């Protein structure tokens, strides 16, 4: 039969020599390789205590952004939902009433905003489509869970902490993005 690749190596079926029958030299050689790793640099880290920094292009859990005064940026324009290849995003819009100006930036806002994390593939197209800088993918994993219903993220789950009421949490949620905006 013709081999599929030229990397095929035939099995050596020749009888073992005297040195090979002794076994011990081969074991000593193998152990030497094993123990030499003690002195080499560890490629792993102790995960829960130590965490690797994320790549700057890492795409994690979505966050709904607020402006400096804590008003929601999202106007429920639906571009993220129409760009989403997995159809994970759904929303319902409402009109801002007088007295709600401190909550929402524009006259229309998302009364309901949901991302089905079971569907989301973290492609980041929602962030690209957004004309209002309202949604971006953060440097957090979506936590695992036992139940499906925990993966329907509503607006309260997705909103960034209030920058005035909770500035520390806001900065943490911004993550790498805070540095990016400072450069610009």
């Amino acid at each position: 039969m013709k081999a599929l690749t030229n990397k095929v190596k035939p099995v050596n079926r020749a009888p073992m020599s005297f040195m090979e029958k002794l076994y011990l030299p081969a074991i000593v050689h193998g152990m030497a390789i094993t123990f030499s790793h003690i002195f080499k640099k560890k490629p792993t880290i102790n995960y829960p205590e130590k965490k690797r920094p994320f790549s700057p292009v890492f795409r994690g859990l979505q966050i709904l952004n607020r402006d400096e005064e804590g008003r929601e940026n999202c106007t429920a324009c639906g571009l993220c939902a129409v760009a989403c290849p997995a159809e994970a995003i759904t929303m319902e819009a409402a009109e801002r009433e007088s007295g709600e100006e401190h909550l929402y930036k524009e006259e229309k806002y998302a009364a309901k905003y949901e991302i089905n994390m079971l569907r989301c593939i973290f492609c980041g197209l929602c962030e690209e489509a957004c004309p209002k800088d309202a949604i971006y993918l953060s440097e957090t994993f979506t936590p695992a869970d036992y139940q499906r219903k925990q993966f329907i993220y509503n607006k309260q789950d997705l909103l960034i902490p209030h920058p005035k009421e909770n500035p520390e949490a806001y900065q943490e949620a911004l993550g790498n993005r805070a540095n990016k905006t400072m450069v610009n």
Partner: protein
Amino acid sequence: METVSNKIKVTIDNITVEVDPGTTILQAARMIGGDVTPPAMCYYSKLQGSGGKCRTCLVEVAAGSAADPRPMPKLVASCRTGVMDGMVVKNITSEKVPDARAGVVEFLLLNHPLDCPICDQAGECHLQDLGYDHGKAGTRYEFSRRTFKRIDIGPYIQLHMNRCILCYRCTYVADQITDSRSHGVIDRGDHAQISTYITKAIDNDFSGNMIDVCPVGALTDKTFRFKNRVWFTKPVDAHRNCTTPGCCGKATLWLRGDEVFRVTARKDEWGEVQSFDGKTGWICNTCRFESKQTSQWTIEGVTTISRHSVIGLNKYQTLNMPQETVKKVMHGVEPKLLMDIHSVSGVNNPDIHLSEIDRPAHSSDFKK
């Protein structure tokens, strides 16, 4: 050239058509169809006297007629220029036209707020299409945009004067379709605005047709305001026996599930209201604003949407949805659902009927 028929020949972008005398270049181009047709923002074939205001339909006339083949010195507005026998017109083959049209788009967008993420017209807006097809990405305008105070013009129609491009189509609707004109253009030049005189509410039976003729989002349906984006609603053709004289009763329903979110007149390929038996299919306000139940309509079928339009995205092209197969294959055993989405999700709550609210939804409407 002396033939029995008195048709005249006109060549547009190397395509020759025979048309009746008195036809405009734009109408001749629409007979050819496709890319050859110049865009039109103010011209509306169903409204007499419209056209000649926006200048987006500019074309180059390379030869005036067979008798006088000199080219016209300047680009002409095709909606207002009649064809002559042997006329040679250049639209997409012209070098001057795209540049001139980009300039026109820049002018139209000078004072346009570009609030498409909020605007209900986004997705079916002629100015959006025009900007994408013929405009340039940037503007050279450095001053603050013209803004107007918001005026309430009644319970059905929302006026956003900031978005208006002053095409005058709505005033022609008021003049020609309704029996009393209660709005028009007031002031001049940069201050010109569409308004009802001394904030008189528009209460004519056919006033809703202004929404359909408006090429931008300046006049939008208040009962549909912010309910949904047009591309998430499914358009179906439907008709009802309307008793209002003059109403054709044939409309397009924009559905979300089984809810009628919006009713519009049926549009043709040029974005104009369709004609039925030679009569323009205007619909009355009862059909448009007060018939938001599917039981009030006879649904004919799904509206054909151009496949280039965002409105056709992610929709079944038929009325009948695919049947559930699990029960058939499993000898009558229902599929076991691991999660009912309505038990967790707040969106599309079956207890909240947005179509029954005759104003934009507010935060209180979602607190059920």
